[in-house]
């Protein structure tokens, strides 16, 4: 509806060329670089034409917030400041996004939980903020090691939720995430999650797009809600909310509003499939045993499959990339031949297994595990052992008194 002005081909103040996002991500040459996951976040943001980044850099889970501060000093970020707390940061992100900015932030663990009230508000206000979640433990006694329990709390906020396995996923999905979440019919916040420490603190070879290319800027006039109109919902909602009126119209409007958030999650499906090449990746799903996992549990599952192949056990793999939108149809199709479905997870409750059980027929096929939590590693051997035990094969003890 706005006067569309294409920035493609023009340069920003740093001399980067605004580039068609598809060309930048799929056709531009890639430069292999050896970076930590935190450094990869910084490099993605360098190319993201980000207007505002707000940081609460206490978390030792990731250096990303501090590194993006360096980007601001270099002139790649429009504005950058530190909030008083995680709750303040997420509220300030909302303010910046209401004003029409492309907004980015990071969080982890207890910080995510402290800020939680903001996430359904972001979704309800249709603010396409991108939040990196470098997952860690949330409960006392605290842990800074990876634990994906916080993802389960994000699943019903109305945000898009993606779970990266590798630093390469992270680099690509940060940039692609802005494109998907800013589509006018989607226009929702994105929680881009990874398993903290494993991805953020370890180095890997990541193929980067050219540093002299960047995403086109965000166009707030394509938003499905008015940009910063203090007289209209969603802003006005906060001082004149529906809950202040007890009548059918207020309730019906609020209900329709909530439905619209989840409708937008559904609409993100086709864009997510296009940009991250499907909601899941699959390997050998004709096998009778299939591992379904997300995040670094996929990497461990892949290693377990290699170990099992050495012993003559064939096993398939499903990598769940997007949790919202949820790939229900894809998982049903990928597991239709499986007699045993194993769901290794880095959390104590097994939320991914529960999601899968509620999605597929004959859910007794799902073995919810193995689980580790609190920062434990998940050796591939324990996945292989659990599979062999379920199949009635002999499995060596992996822990015990050494007898």
């Amino acid at each position: 509806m706005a006067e569309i002005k294409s920035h493609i081909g023009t340069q920003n103040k740093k001399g980067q060329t605004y580039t068609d996002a598809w060309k930048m991500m799929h056709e531009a040459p890639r430069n292999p670089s050896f970076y930590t996951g935190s450094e990869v976040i910084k490099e993605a943001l360098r190319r993201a034409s980000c207007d505002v980044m707000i940081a609460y850099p206490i978390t030792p889970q990731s250096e990303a917030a501090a590194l993006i501060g360096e980007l601001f000093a270099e002139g790649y970020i429009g504005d950058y400041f530190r909030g008083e707390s995680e709750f303040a940061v997420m509220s300030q992100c909302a303010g910046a996004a209401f004003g029409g900015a492309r907004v980015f932030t990071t969080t982890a663990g207890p910080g995510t939980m402290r800020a939680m009230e903001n996430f359904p508000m972001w979704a309800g206000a249709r603010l396409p903020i991108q939040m990196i979640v470098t997952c860690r433990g949330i409960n006392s006694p605290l842990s800074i090691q990876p634990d994906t329990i916080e993802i389960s709390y994000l699943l019903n906020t109305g945000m898009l939720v993606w779970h990266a396995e590798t630093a390469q996923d992270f680099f690509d999905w940060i940039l692609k995430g802005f494109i998907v979440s800013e589509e006018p019919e989607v226009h929702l916040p994105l929680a881009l999650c990874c398993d903290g420490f494993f991805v953020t603190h370890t180095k890997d070879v990541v193929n980067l797009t050219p540093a002299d290319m960047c995403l086109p800027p965000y166009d707030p006039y394509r938003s499905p809600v008015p940009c910063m109109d203090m007289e209209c919902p969603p802003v006005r909602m906060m001082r004149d909310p529906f809950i202040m009126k007890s009548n059918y119209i207020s309730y019906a409007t609020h209900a329709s509003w909530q439905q619209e958030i989840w409708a937008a999650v559904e609409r993100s499906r086709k864009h997510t499939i296009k940009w991250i090449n499907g909601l899941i990746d699959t390997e050998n799903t004709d096998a009778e045993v299939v591992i379904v996992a997300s995040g670094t549990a996929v990497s461990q599952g892949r290693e377990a499959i290699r170990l099992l192949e050495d012993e003559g056990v064939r096993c398939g793999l499903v990598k769940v990339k997007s949790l919202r939108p949820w790939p229900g149809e894809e998982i049903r199709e990928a597991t239709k031949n499986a007699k045993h479905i194993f769901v290794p997870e880095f959390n104590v409750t097994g939320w991914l297994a529960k999601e899968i059980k509620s999605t597929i027929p004959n859910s007794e096929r799902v073995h919810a595990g193995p689980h580790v939590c609190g920062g434990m590693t998940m050796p591939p051997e324990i996945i292989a052992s659990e599979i062999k035990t379920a199949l009635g094969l002999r499995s060596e003890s992996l822990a015990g008194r050494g007898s």
Partner: protein
Amino acid sequence: MTQYRVLPGPEHFLPPAAASMGIYLPNPGEAHINGVIVPEEKAYEEAARQFLMAQVPTIFPGPLVLWAWNEKAAKKAAAVRKLYEILKECVQPGQKPMLIPMPDYRPKYPKINPEVEINPNHPNLTIWHNKIDCCMFIGVHCHQANLSLKIIRGGTSCYTVAMCAQAGHEDAMLSFRDASVEKIIKLGEWIRKLKGTVKPRLTTAKTSASN
């Protein structure tokens, strides 16, 4: 493939969002009718037919065309006005075309007169009181349009058309996407083309018995 179809209501106490029922938005060059993707040309004909069939065909222009916030908006507003004039020319005696604005989205109930102004939070009141049986949204922000379209589908039998400047609306019974001045004019041309060939309905919009 979903069996769900986006049809005139009253559908339900709380009708679902069509997107949650498996209805997809059209791609560029396409439209949807009742949730089924069709070539855009077919949608022009059907929208014109619905307008000419209705007792009270109504255009609801929203803030994006009501306020001259850029040159394109002003041109669209002129095209909407022209469409309304065409509609008045082409209907038969007894039909009553209307142009009712949605100037903003403030929750105003019970302060406004819903017969002269539509509000996305209670659009059903405007439909009921004016006995509107076919309407078109244009220039309404997408979130607010979907909010309204669901409420209308829930409690009224009004046929809804969306002329959307972005990706379209599953919650309308018929939706265009990428709306432009040219598309508004083209719809007017289709109305002229079908003038006199469509028999108006004899009854007006039904309302939900519970209201």
